[in-house]
């Protein structure tokens, strides 16, 4: 059996999980602590990928990330490579559609944070940076872990968006879900079954490991 699609899926899920806090944390804190006009508007925009059909989101991304779209054009000017149909492209798409799944749990854990803790820290002379590392981060680890689990699992199984912007190139954008779909379409049911059967324990083990880490932390 060809393991490439499964490894590629794991790679995509791993990188998404690693990079998403960078995008999601500022947005989550903005939504949790910020007081500004249009906050509910921002909230809705971030949550949009969760509600939109994956094909609609995928088509929108195909247009924006294509060489004539603003993201794709910028990327091509900077790197000389095309953004769609590349691993960087599906990773970017994966970050977009996973955003609400990371922002929501992070925001919830930030909102639960007792403001008096931060106030006492400020009174005791802690700089905002060390207050973040010594108070905010340890208190939000649960939310961060919940976000990671969701994002990892979600990108491991994502199909519609990647199908639209990936172009199914073996070893680059042909992830497990796409490979399984193609095997079914080609009536290669044995291949589809083997890949699906391999995917289930992989997901299961990943979840077990993450749960174990969580249990130890708390």
């Amino acid at each position, binding site marked *: 059996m060809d393991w490439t699609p499964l490894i590629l899926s794991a790679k995509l899920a791993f990188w998404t999980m690693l990079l998403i806090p960078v995008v999601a944390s500022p947005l989550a804190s903005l939504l949790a602590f910020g007081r500004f006009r249009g906050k509910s508007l921002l909230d809705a925009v971030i949550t949009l990928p969760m509600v939109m059909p994956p094909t609609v989101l995928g088509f929108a991304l195909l247009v924006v990330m294509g*060489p004539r779209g603003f993201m794709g054009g910028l990327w091509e000017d900077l790197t000389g490579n095309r953004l769609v149909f590349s691993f960087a492209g599906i990773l970017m798409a994966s970050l977009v559609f996973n955003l609400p799944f990371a922002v929501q749990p992070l925001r919830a854990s930030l909102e639960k944070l007792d403001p008096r803790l931060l106030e006492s820290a400020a009174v005791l002379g802690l700089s905002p940076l060390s207050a973040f590392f010594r108070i905010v981060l340890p208190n939000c680890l649960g939310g961060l872990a919940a976000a990671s689990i969701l994002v990892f699992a979600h990108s491991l199984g994502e199909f519609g968006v990647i199908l*639209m912007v990936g172009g199914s190139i073996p070893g680059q954008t042909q992830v497990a879900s796409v490979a399984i779909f193609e095997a079914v379409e080609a009536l290669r049911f044995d291949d589809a079954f083997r890949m699906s059967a391999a995917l289930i324990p992989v997901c299961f083990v990943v979840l077990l490991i993450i749960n174990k880490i969580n249990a130890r932390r708390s």
Partner: protein
Amino acid sequence: MKRICSLVLALCLLVPSGASAADLLIAQAANFTPVMKEIIPAFEKATGLTAQATYASTGKLYGQIVNDAPFDIFLAADEKRPNKLHADGLAEKPFIYAMGQVVLWSADKGFCGEDWKATVLSPAVKRVAVANTETAPYGTSAMKAMQKVGVWDKVQPKLVFGQSISQTFQFASTGSADVGFCAYSSVFTDEGRKGCFVVVDQAPPVIQAACVLKSASHPDAAAKFVEFLSSPEVQAMKLKYGYK
């Protein structure tokens, strides 16, 4: 207010049940959709029967049929699936109802030179879209053409694969791929007219076969429809949309 609400609700419940009572249920491969949308009214006018088509990929329709979907006739985009249904005793003998042609289409009018081999090999063309060479008949045909003229190995690193011929066209029409091996029929769509194309002569014609299902609950209507498909009226419609 309450009365209006209940009236609307009653209408909602009534409408779909009225619409599904057709005399003929057609499972149609999606690439032939524009032609079928013209064939059905003509057929209804000629025979007085009503027909209703479901449009999906050949593979999906095949999957539905093996699982007892209530269709009368299956019009596929290939020969493989109808032949398989026939071999498995689920359908009557298949027949050819249309033939498609592969073209190289581009949104950029600079990429439609007479020599399509030179175009796909040109360094200016970074990405070439083609339909899945295993499942989509247009993909298989395009692959054979590239193999025949000896460019397959060289083009391979540039290839991106659409799941269907319509997705392949989408890749080309959004400019995400510079050129795409598309169906001649897509040239006749609104989006298709915005670009340019060159016919790939070396690509074998894409044979589309159909079969009447043994489980058909309207076999007489299906027989009439099969007859209607070979009428000069339908021939003209097929030509208009790029089929033979």
